[in-house]
């Protein structure tokens, strides 16, 4: 397309009185696709152009009322249905207290809605490639002149006629405005490399920023989430105590509450000889022992102590608890194993307290007996 497409004709005027008169005459002549361009809103121009009143207040009303309604439903659902919380003894549906928020939301939505509707639907903005842009005409009418433009799409449009009409109503510098060929021929497609690159850059930037913010930035100094506190943590060097340790050695002979000192560390035989299970064989103790055995012992020893580990060879299988050797051990000897560990088995002193250890031993005894029952047990 070499030939330029005509957009329309424009003419300029010097004073507001002239432009009002010109607008009236243009409207009277029967033009429809024309417009008046002024540097500021000129009073009386709407009447001169015979424009109908703007419908935007209705949009504001509609958006505002819908937002009010939706917010009310939302608040009602939040406070009375989804998660009712009693606040200060007030009812869940405490409408007076909701008025401020409802009001703010109404105003917010109505304002945004009206302005967005005006810009996007009434003005069809953003539109920065209108043929009038970058012309002397637009440069004059945004500054100190008043202009009229008559579009070529007007049913009454005829080049000669419009030019003479504009001259007859006193317009100066009458000019023809053409569409920019590059812009007219420009096809906007989604698959343009520029557009796709833009999308990729935006996607990367957004996801990168989000990742950085949520996963890194929030955990950087000074956002320390109260990790930085004026207290000693284990193994920290102390500048206060002369020996430099922040952890203090208890006074000699101190026994922690609820703990019995264990005197047989490293001497299982002595433990086997001297320690006696203090627990009675009750259902409660056996229940406790079973629970703890299932939690801590069964992964390696198996639920029945047969040494059938559930760890699929990730840790060496222990020998069976039903061997002659273990069955002949005293309770105290087994207790020593729990306390000190044995071979690859670690100590379970910190996982089980004293009672639980003895209960586990009771349960182990019950297991052993179940697999080696004597005649007399059947009675």
């Amino acid at each position: 397309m070499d030939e330029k497409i005509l957009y329309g004709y424009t003419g300029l005027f010097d004073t507001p009185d002239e432009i009002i008169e010109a607008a009236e005459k243009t409207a009277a002549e029967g033009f429809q696709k024309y417009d008046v361009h002024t540097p500021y809103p000129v009073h009386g121009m709407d009447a001169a152009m015979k424009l109908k009143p703007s419908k935007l207040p209705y949009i504001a009303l509609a958006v505002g009322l819908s937002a009010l309604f939706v917010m009310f439903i939302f608040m009602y659902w939040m406070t009375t249905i989804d998660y009712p919380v009693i606040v200060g003894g007030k009812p869940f549906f405490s409408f007076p207290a909701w008025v401020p928020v409802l009001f703010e939301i109404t105003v917010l939505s109505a304002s945004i809605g009206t302005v967005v509707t005006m810009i996007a639907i009434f003005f069809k903005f953003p539109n920065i490639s209108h043929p009038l842009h970058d012309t002397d005409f637009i440069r004059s009418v945004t500054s100190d002149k008043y202009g009229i433009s008559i579009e070529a799409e007007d049913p009454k449009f005829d080049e000669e006629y419009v030019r003479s009409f504009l001259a007859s109503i006193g317009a100066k510098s009458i000019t023809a405005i053409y569409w920019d060929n590059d812009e007219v021929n420009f096809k906007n497609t989604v698959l343009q490399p520029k557009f796709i690159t833009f999308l990729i850059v935006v996607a990367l930037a957004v996801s990168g920023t989000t990742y950085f913010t949520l996963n890194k930035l929030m955990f950087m100094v000074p956002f320390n989430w109260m990790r930085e506190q004026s207290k000693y943590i284990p193994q920290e060097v102390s500048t206060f105590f002369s020996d430099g340790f922040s952890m203090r050695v208890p006074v000699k002979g101190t026994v922690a509450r609820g703990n019995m000192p264990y005197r047989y560390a490293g001497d299982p035989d002595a433990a086997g000889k001297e320690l006696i299970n203090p627990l009675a064989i009750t259902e409660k103790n056996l229940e406790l022992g079973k629970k703890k055995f299932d939690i801590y012992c069964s992964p390696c020893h198996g639920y029945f102590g047969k040494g059938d580990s559930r760890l699929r060879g990730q840790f060496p299988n222990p020998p069976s608890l039903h061997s002659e050797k273990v069955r002949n051990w005293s309770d105290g000897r087994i207790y020593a194993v729990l306390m000190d560990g044995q071979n690859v088995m670690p100590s379970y002193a910190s996982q089980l307290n004293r009672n639980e250890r003895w209960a586990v031993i009771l349960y182990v005894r019950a297991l052993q007996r179940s697999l080696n029952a004597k005649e007399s047990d059947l009675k």
Partner: protein
Amino acid sequence: MSSSVPDYSKNVSVIEGKPSLRSIDDLISKPLDTKPDKKYYIALAVTTTMLMIGAIALLASFYYGTGLWGNNNPVGWGFPIVNFVFWVGIGHAGTLISAILFLLRQKWRNGIARFAEGMTIFAVMTAGIFPAIHVGRPWLDGYLFPYPNQHSLWVNFNSPLLWDVFAVSTYFTVSFIFWYVGLIPDFAILRDRTKSKIKKTIYSITSLGWRGSNRHWQHYEMVYLVLAGFATPLVLSVHTIVSFDFAVAILPGWHSTIFPPYFVAGAVFSGFAMVQNVLIFIRKIFNYEHIITIDTLEKMNKVILLTGSLVGYAYAMEFFIAWYSGVQIEQFTFVNRAFGPYAWAYWIMVSCNVLFPQLFWIKKIRRTIPLMFIIAVLVNVGMWFERYVITVSSLARDYLPSSWAYFTPTLTDLSILLGSFGFFFTFLLLFTKTLPVVSIVEVKAVVEGSQPSHKDH
């Protein structure tokens, strides 16, 4: 308006002389077209230094915790809330000027509206910092909004503090939209004036393609009216809700029905004083004396006088109600305010807010720039102390004498306050160099001879 009998039959122009439309373009966009001079950089250096001091104090508070502030039992609200209320109050002038005075058809507002709106936005931004940091862990502020979260909890809609979140964020958004809508035609003017390609691109985008079409102006004016209609109750609601933060509590000295109107009057009072302070510089530096005339400044002073008197009335009424109610604890609270440990703050407040603005009854003072500047500064000092007195003195001595204590701000508190001024003025300085501080379109519309004479219709 003047002492001689005014002639209401003719429209008095609010713009002095009869500047040509193009000269208005040239004048208002001059700061944008020219390189800033040395004074500007000095001013910017000062404000950014203040800002950095505040930023360092803030980072230290994030790192070490809010223990760096003076806030402690029983005064848990200290400086952050005082500063918040102060800055939100400053932010009330802009929307009042642009919305309420617009509805009242006060044409003199046209020269100062844009600037005051800009101030509103920056003041609300400054104010927004304070509740955000006062929560102690500002990175968790998202919890203030009702969004579906993994705790499956919602916010408490019965709490004034939550109303505040909605009020202030709505106020900021609507003010910003109002401001931007006002800027669109001005961006178009700048777009068509500029020679620089980069500026042209920016202005083309921000003006959205405005072409001064009357079919657009028609909707534009209607939306401006609608927005003004929305912003008017909004601006009143915001400080009302801020006052609810206090009034809904049962603390003596806070629990009072006079708070909402009293706070709104105080907000307009301090906002106008701040606008006045900065306008005096702007009109001098940029040679806008004929656009922002001495008459405009005088009218501003009259508003300051009115709202100052309202605030004074509220102070008096608080005492009256305390006496009249017969509630001992209320009576004690007010006597304690005026003569207790915070008497110094109370009397600074009374003298700055009630006594000095009364000088504006004298026309000479209303029209003398240095004097009105000093009074406006005093008003801002007084209004800051008003919030200090309300917040601190009530908390420091409530029902239980055993929990009384005296609040002392720390250096960190003061640094953050200084930083908030730095923040506000830095934005203001950048604003004067990047956007037209006076609405070109609105000024043109009120220049003499800019409207048709309606001789034949």
